[in-house]
């Protein structure tokens, strides 16, 4: 297996005696980053969950292709007798509608595919925003210390103390729903936990001699923060990012479920789950089950992948070497 040969070379390489010229040039140290990726590649759970994530991403990207194959648009309504029963109820899975139809006769499969776009966009963009704000605030808070730290740390405490859903619902209802509003609200309410993690790490790193060395060379605070300190806290940041994505996806679905997410008729998983409640009691199980499964599989895949990322980049004990 190729991975086992990788492991062997990784162990031997740094210790190999250095020859002159060409041979020396070929022997190049692996960055902690490379080592982490190699550990990740040997993790079967990580690779399976990554495969599922890729499949979901492809489904989102090629949602129009899925729509073309089954011949139904995401907002195309099919009334009785095609997409609805004579009583106006949704129809179940069939060769025409693989996952059945919803309350107004739209194809659930096509809407799940389109809904993946919203979940992934919000999940990724809001997470990146969250982590970016959290990392910068955490860095600045810990590095500058003093009054800056006191203020920023209190802001973080305040954000962590406020119930997320309550504040998000009130903010969205004041600003008005929309994709970018959703991303910004989730991002601004979620950074405190990242900020706290980064702050704690930076507090210990800023006392290291190499930070002093950079200061004695005349480096300014921003250079020290981003070039000397940030690379040393990037591992926990990456780990936290990968674990935050599913949380963000669920947060988006929750807001949409509560009716303050993406405005209709845009397809969205949370909204579909909310919508399905009105027909579930009449036997339309498919409308509840398939969007829920989509949400479950997506968050589960991201969670398992996130766990593997943590194992790979934050190694403890025997996992230190590839």
């Amino acid at each position, binding site marked *: 297996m190729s991975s086992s040969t990788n492991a062997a070379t990784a162990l031997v390489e740094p210790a190999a005696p250095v020859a002159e*010229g060409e041979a020396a040039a070929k022997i*190049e*140290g692996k960055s902690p980053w490379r080592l982490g990726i190699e550990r990740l590649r040997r993790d079967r759970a990580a690779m399976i969950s990554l495969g599922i994530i890729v499949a979901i991403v492809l489904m989102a990207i090629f949602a129009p292709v899925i729509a073309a194959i089954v011949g139904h648009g995401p907002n195309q309504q099919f009334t009785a007798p095609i997409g609805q029963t004579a009583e106006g109820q949704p129809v179940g899975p069939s060769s025409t509608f693989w996952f059945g139809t919803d309350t107004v006769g739209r194809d659930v499969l096509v809407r799940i595919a389109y809904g993946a776009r919203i979940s992934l966009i919000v999940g990724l963009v809001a997470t990146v925003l969250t982590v970016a704000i959290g990392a910068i605030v955490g860095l600045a808070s810990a590095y500058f210390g003093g009054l800056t730290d006191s203020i920023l740390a209190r802001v973080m405490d305040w954000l962590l103390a406020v119930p997320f859903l309550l504040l998000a619902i009130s903010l969205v209802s004041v600003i008005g729903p929309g994709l970018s509003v959703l991303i910004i609200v989730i991002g601004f309410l979620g950074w405190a936990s990242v900020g706290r993690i980064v702050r704690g790490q930076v507090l210990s790193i800023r006392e290291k001699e190499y930070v002093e*060395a950079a200061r*004695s060379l*005349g480096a300014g605070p921003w250079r020290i923060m981003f070039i*000397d300190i940030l690379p040393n806290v990037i591992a926990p940041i990456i780990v936290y990012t990968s674990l935050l994505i599913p949380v963000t996806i669920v947060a988006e679905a929750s807001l949409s479920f509560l009716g303050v997410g993406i405005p209709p008729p845009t397809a969205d998983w949370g909204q579909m789950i909310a919508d399905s409640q009105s027909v579930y009691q009449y036997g339309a199980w498919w409308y509840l089950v398939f969007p829920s499964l989509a949400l479950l599989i997506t968050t589960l895949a991201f969670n398992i992948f996130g766990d593997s990322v943590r194992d790979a980049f934050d190694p403890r004990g025997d996992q230190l070497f590839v």
Partner: protein
Amino acid sequence: MSASTAATPPVDATDADVLLRVENVVKHFPVQSGKLFNRDPAVVHAVDGVSLSVRRGETVGLVGETGCGKSTLARCIVRLHDLTSGRVIFDGDDISTLPPRQMRPYRREMQMIFQDPYGSLNPRRRVGSIIGDPFAIHKTASGQERKRRVQEVMELVGLNPEHFNRFPAEFSGGQRQRIGVARALAFRPKLIVCDEPVSALDVSIQAQIINLLADLQSELGLTYIFIAHDLSVVRHVSNSVAVMYLGKVTEHAPVEQLWNHPRHPYTDALLSAVPLPDPNKSAQRERIILVGDVPSPIVPPSGCRFHPRCPKARQDCVDRDPELVPRLSDGPDHLAACHFPVEDGEDISKARPSLATEDRIIEPGLLGGA
């Protein structure tokens, strides 16, 4: 020399030979005990009025026990710490209060080598980028030019320039210290402050680094402040040696003068602790055993700070802080801060202080609260 200038170092204050002058530097650290409502925080008297001068091309050794303030003094000199008071005059300019931006040109002229070859190199950055930092920070060279200059410096300190792309973790302690030296040398500074550069290394590696530093000094005309607690190392590398105790310089003299004619009882005690390679001589020698521990720098003793442990202490030592001036018949470059300096040939291992015992005890509570 008049009494008012007595505390200044042995050379003329305006002497062009003097690269660095430290005048009455004081550094106090507040003790963090409950930030809120702490009106009168206690302070650690890390450095308490130190004056030194360093001539161009020379090495000044700085010795003392752990916690005596030598590292703090080093960090004050390169302005890693802001001074509580006092002045640091580098190459004729007072740099002690310069804001960071105006400090930058001086940072190219004075560099520091750190004690811990592991902690002082960023584990996430490649060696080339670490040594190239000075060029990047001062924007003097980039791209291929920077790489060329970095490899030049690596060669200078005896590193293989091919190892440019490696991480610090791939080097041994001695090689890592060479990386630290290379980084300090990048700009060919005038002054290098070495903060215990060899104390974390094996003895055989220590010799390599010391020889490297000596070679670089003669090659590049460097001036060193060399901090160490290994007296043999200091004797080997230094032109003059300053002994520190509890934030103050107790004695400052040319190295052989200090070794042969120590004036301060503390210096005498320190030197008597240096192991002698000859077992016969070693057995004959009387070691001066100091009693007690170093007092707390938060509440330093009155008068001479050494008086609670000094075998020659008298009432004067408790009452008056001795000045750092030439004692007995010493020349102007041998300074000692002692009211009752040790005479040549005097054996103080048998001396007993003429003090009431109560005066010598800092914390009576420790002895059962008499």
